[in-house]
């Protein structure tokens, strides 16, 4: 029985040219696919065998080596030895992520040897260096003295390591494409032993284990040169770009375009020169041959480019602030460098934000995440107290879990202290502590074991040495004040509940290189907070401890399991409340003169309507997310139905029932529910409603009105309906450029008043309309609709709307606005989700599988590394 394997095949000489000259053997794991078998040698594949599943695990995220024993190649190593001997040169390539920098020996990463003293070659780790050992007929059987990467330091991050030996005896060690060590060796490979074994992670005889992850191993029968090594490094593990690579000049120009120029164009030009407006027949949101034909852009020559001429002279942008000198410099540099245009459509939703704005923030738990975490980890319901004591989280970028905005106030600290006391007071400490230890003596020996077990569960990951000492301090202090085990447990928990590791989601951000996988515990928290808005349960933590969570199959099983849990529903309701800002309903206060029949209970009924509808559509019927826009039923209390002007169903006061809306064409879908229709205030503002559809359903971007504009709300009057006022703004020369992009989106809703009641004629006797048109961002031609129902069907069918839902869900999962660097991944998530059916669970599964969850967010690149 093969416990785990590392797929590997030989590459025959005949096929060599197809991949890379001289590649003999290659085993790799490419993220996003099932375990890979790269190629074949003489039509045969061979497996790598681990001693047991506790030795190593193979998953999408590489081969993880956990204990001694290594992983042995079962193929024809004799043949490998012969080939290398006859070649008299070789290259070894590995992509690794060491578990730590304390590994010495050297710890064997890749070895072709018999035991700790006899080898053909070994590539190993010695602290923060790579050490290669190589046998030749002029060197020892042990391949010593070792060849050392003394010019570069290994980091505990994803690292590309290459060791090359030329026929002349020149050896080079490369770390991430850079030379890290060079030495000459005497002799040839002719005394190599063909009977040795090829292993990853240890000697065949054991005793020299290396721990970490390996993503690729390749052996070549020639010495790769520096530019080949650099090129392989730049391609990354799975062909993905490594951002730190030195790019070619055309790559740099493209990168400049994607990270800076697209943003500058969005900020300063697209308001007028996009597909909708095309002022002066110029659409700068797309790459058009006409830009070059008409010398708007002349690649390599800024001075001859009209674009440069008009911005340099501040002729453009009109009526807006001029482009800054720094931005101008970048535009000039971009044109001079070739004016690369690598994007089909500059989507303002992506490019309005600087691409390098992805500063990672340790995410503080939101109020609801805190409540959930306390419930699930400690078994205490603290909802009422936490709701009362903790300051509410403030919305930013459309969500109140936006990490950069989750700041800390004095009130938080006060609340955290009080809540910690309350939580511990509510706990059954006897029962809780028994899960972690049976021994109640307050000795070092017992307490350390107890703190490790308790801490790993409460803090969602292993307890570090210095933390153990701190917690141990609490138990000794308790003991010195005559406290016993239970009191000590209480104080330990109070400290843990206030620890940064409880209140924040701490992940590695610094010193992890450009691309590093979330480790198993980081992943456990990521998926549990993404799917549940709460802490990982024991099963997740157990899998994390075993190092199995990163395995794609396990991850997928866990995702399915978690999506069946009621916590997943709860989290989805959090999402919809946030996305549609349903908490707004708690604060609406309609003018009693205009709405004498309004009762505050109606606001709650509206919120409940949307949440119940969402739950029915998404969880009970398991319909695609798009169905939220046009499914013809809803849930109302008799009072709400009456308020809407619909027939009531006999269900008792305040009790919600399902209403079939097939006979009521103007209702059906979230946009026809009071919770959203109230968004425009008492006056049912076309502007606010239109902006909601544009921003939150179509992911459109609009700048604030210029400072000189009068933004006072114009009230309707006899002979002048809201629609007509809106149309006036759209046709206005100053306002129209922007208003045309969002007001028509709300035309279809004119018949709903500010509180969601349906009427054909307004209070002034104006006849109301429901026809209009929708301009999808990026499309130059708007699409018309005749009725509310048609508008709802149009939105439900729009791929832009469906994409937006995925974007919003992803943003909520990540706790930050998404930017250009995320675009490809989010699009991949969306494609994956749509192929699977486009349901909530499909989107969530795709998010969990995605790079956004499985890779850590490193600190952003500095401007320098991007712009030159």
């Amino acid at each position, binding site marked *: 029985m093969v416990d785990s394997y590392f797929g590997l095949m030989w590459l025959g000489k005949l096929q060599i040219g197809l991949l890379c000259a001289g590649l003999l053997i290659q085993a790799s794991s490419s993220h996003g696919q099932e375990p890979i078998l790269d190629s074949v040698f003489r039509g045969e594949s061979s497996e790598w065998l681990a001693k047991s599943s506790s030795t190593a695990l193979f998953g999408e995220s590489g081969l993880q080596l956990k204990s001694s024993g290594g992983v042995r190649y079962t193929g024809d190593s004799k043949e490998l030895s012969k080939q290398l001997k006859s070649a008299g040169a070789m290259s070894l390539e590995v992509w690794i992520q060491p578990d730590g920098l304390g590994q010495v020996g050297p710890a064997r990463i890749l070895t072709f040897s018999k035991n700790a003293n006899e080898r053909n070659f070994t590539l190993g780790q010695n602290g923060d260096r790579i050490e290669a050992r190589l046998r030749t007929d002029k060197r020892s059987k042990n391949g010593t003295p070792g060849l050392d990467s003394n010019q570069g330091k290994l980091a505990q991050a994803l690292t590309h390591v290459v060791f090359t030996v030329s026929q002349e005896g020149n050896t080079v060690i490369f770390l991430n494409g850079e030379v890290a060590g060079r030495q000459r060796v005497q002799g040839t490979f002719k005394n190599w032993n063909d009977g040795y074994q090829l292993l990853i992670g240890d000697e065949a005889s054991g005793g020299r284990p290396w721990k970490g992850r390996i993503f690729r191993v390749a052996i070549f029968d020639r010495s790769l040169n520096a530019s080949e090594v650099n090129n392989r490094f730049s391609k990354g593990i799975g062909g993905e770009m490594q951002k730190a690579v030195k790019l070619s000049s055309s790559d740099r120009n493209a990168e400049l375009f994607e990270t800076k120029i697209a943003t500058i164009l969005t900020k300063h030009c697209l308001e007028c020169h996009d597909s909708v407006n095309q002022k002066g027949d110029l659409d700068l949101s797309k790459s058009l041959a006409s830009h070059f034909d008409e010398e708007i852009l002349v690649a390599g020559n800024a001075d001859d480019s009209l674009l440069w001429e008009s911005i340099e002279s501040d002729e453009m942008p009109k009526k807006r602030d001029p482009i800054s000198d720094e931005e101008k410099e970048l535009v000039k540099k971009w044109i001079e460098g070739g004016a690369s245009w690598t994007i089909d459509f500059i989507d303002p939703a992506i490019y309005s934000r600087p691409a390098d704005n992805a500063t*990672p923030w340790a995410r503080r738990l939101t109020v609801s995440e805190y409540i959930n975490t306390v419930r699930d980890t400690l078994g205490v319901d603290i909802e009422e107290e936490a709701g009362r004591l903790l300051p509410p989280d403030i919305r930013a970028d459309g969500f109140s879990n936006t990490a950069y905005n989750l700041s800390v106030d004095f009130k938080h600290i006060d609340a955290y202290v009080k809540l910690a006391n309350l939580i511990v007071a509510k706990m059954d400490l006897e029962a809780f502590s028994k899960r972690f230890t049976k021994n109640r003596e307050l000795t070092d020996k017992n307490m350390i074991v107890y703190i490790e077990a308790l801490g790993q569960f409460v803090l969602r990951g292993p307890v570090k040495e210095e933390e153990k000492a701190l*917690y141990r301090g609490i138990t*000794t202090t308790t*003991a010195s004040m*005559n406290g016993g085990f239970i009191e000590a447990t209480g104080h330990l928990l109070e400290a843990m509940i206030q620890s940064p590791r409880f209140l924040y989601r701490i*992940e590695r951000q610094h010193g992890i290189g450009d691309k590093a996988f979330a480790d198993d515990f980081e992943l456990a928290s990521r998926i549990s907070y993404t799917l549940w808005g709460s802490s990982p349960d024991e099963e997740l933590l157990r899998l994390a401890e075993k190092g199995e969570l990163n395995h794609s199959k396990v991850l997928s099983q866990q995702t399915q399991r978690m999506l069946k849990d009621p916590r997943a529903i709860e989290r989805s309701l959090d999402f919809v409340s946030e996305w549609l800002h349903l908490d707004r309903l708690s604060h609406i206060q309609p003018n009693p003169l205009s709405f004498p029949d309004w009762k505050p209970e109606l606001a709650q009924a509206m919120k409940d309507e949307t949440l119940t509808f969402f739950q029915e559509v998404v969880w009970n019927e398991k319909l695609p997310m798009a169905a939220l826009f046009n499914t013809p039923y809803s849930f109302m209390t008799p009072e709400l139905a009456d308020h809407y002007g619909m027939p009531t169903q006999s269900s008792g006061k305040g009790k919600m029932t399902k209403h079939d809306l097939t006979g009521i064409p103007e209702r059906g879908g979230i946009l026809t529910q009071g919770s959203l229709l109230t968004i425009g205030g008492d006056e049912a503002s076309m502007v606010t409603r239109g902006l909601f559809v544009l921003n939150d359903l179509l992911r459109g971007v609009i700048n604030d009105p210029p400072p000189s504009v009068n933004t006072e709300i114009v009230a309707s009057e006899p002979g002048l309906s809201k629609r007509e006022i809106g149309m006036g703004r759209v046709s206005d020369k100053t306002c129209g450029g922007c208003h045309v992009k969002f007001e028509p989106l709300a035309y279809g809703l004119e018949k709903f008043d500010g509180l969601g009641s349906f009427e054909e004629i307004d209070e002034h006797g104006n006849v109301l309309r429901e026809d209009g048109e929708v301009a999808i961002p990026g499309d130059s031609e708007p699409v018309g609709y005749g009725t509310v129902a048609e508008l709802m069907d149009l939105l439900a069918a729009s791929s832009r709307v469906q994409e937006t839902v995925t974007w919003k869900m992803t943003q909520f999962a990540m706790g930050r606005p998404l930017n250009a660097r995320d675009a490809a991944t989010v699009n991949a998530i969306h494609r994956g989700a749509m192929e699977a059916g486009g349901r909530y669970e499909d989107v969530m599964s795709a998010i969990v599988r995605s790079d956004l969850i499985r890779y850590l967010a490193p600190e952003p690149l500095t401007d320098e590394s991007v712009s030159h």
Partner: protein
Amino acid sequence: MKTRSFTRRTLLRGLGGVAIGLPVMEEMFPGTSLAASAASKQVPTRAFNVFFGLGIPDPVQPNQFDGVLEPLAPLRDQLMVLRGVDQVRCDRSGMNAHFDGATGAFTATPPNGEARSGGASIDQLVRRAHYPDGLPKGMVPTLVGGTFFRRSRVGRYVHSYNPDGTTAAAMQEKPRDLFERVFGRIRLSGEGNETEERLKRSVLDSVAEQYKFYTGANSPLGYASKERFKDHLDRIREYEERSFAIDIDDPRAPSMPPASELKHSGAADPGGEGIDITLEELTKEWRLMADLYALAIQMDRARFGSITFLAAGERIRLKGDYHYNGKLIHRFDDGSQLNGSGSKGCSHEWWHRFNESKKNEQLRAHAHMKMREVAYFLTRLHEGEDNREGNGKSILENSMIAISTESGDGRHSDVKRELSGIFHAVTGAGGRFKTGGVLKANSEGIDVYNTMLDAMGVTSRLGPPDRKYHRLDSMLA
């Protein structure tokens, strides 16, 4: 090394800050006026235990005030050193000699489990006998303080116990804590008692330590997150100041001493692996502690309690040149000299390596240094007008102060041997005990202590009721 000593008057003049209500105090105590108690002829009954970690192996103890006892020589007339005092009855199976011996100091009984002594300590029996209705209002009933790092078991560092074996008072391990205990009153933020409040504060301290880690150089966080955590830490500090504000309720109180720069609580004892510390750091903190403790006695805020200089089995890697009376005694550098890291590089290894037939140079130097620091504290109760009491004697001379330690020759394989010949010294207690030399007591600790209780007019005795008490007449004046 420069170590300022803090007498009552230097403290009154303020430590790095403006003294609270200084002019008033100067008016209250013009010139060299004495502490309140000193004004009357009545000398209060006092009893204190002074403990130092890692004792002095019997063969190293000299028969006069020289060798490792050299620093006690200036106090020769105020002390009697007792040799041949055995604590063998303190051995308890399953414990280790550091701990058994340490818990036996001042109680002469084996420990009762991990966090309790086997019975009362002598200071507490004197307190109960002399103040059956409690101490005068406002006085700290028992003051327990000390400078130490190893914490695994309470008996290693707390040395005042109630008869039921519980600690007689909370340990004040930072000078500032001791200051607050003596001169302040914690403003209780909720219900709960003062001990509970102190525990809550220590919980919050450990929380702050963690935020400190995440804002420091080894933090795994990026710049933005670190800044956020700095904010969080600042708010915690603010919360601490607001919620645990101290009301200074003694108008004579000096200004707040500086915050400790040493590691405390859990951080000071990383799993028994020991910490690096310089002689200067250690001495600076200890002397501030000793000054404040002495000041509490001078101002008559405390009459009973214990003070600890280094815990039993203390694990420090000490570094620094040790001079005494202008001559270099030793260059401490435990880590390098022992060629070990973690606990294997700690001074306590010198005790394990003790060999009667060798020089034991490092062990002697450590013991000498401890005696210097014990002498420092005792001197603070003896020298100067502030210590002169109504009967013309010093506080040191009028008080019952017992100085002892754990076992200490490192023979873990021979507990009986290790618990024999434990260093003891006793003050005159207002003329009750002989002073001025080294006495070959050759007695059990329990008899020494019971003799002291007897002389202090205490009727209760340590140990099992059926045990015959052998009075050590030779120690009585």
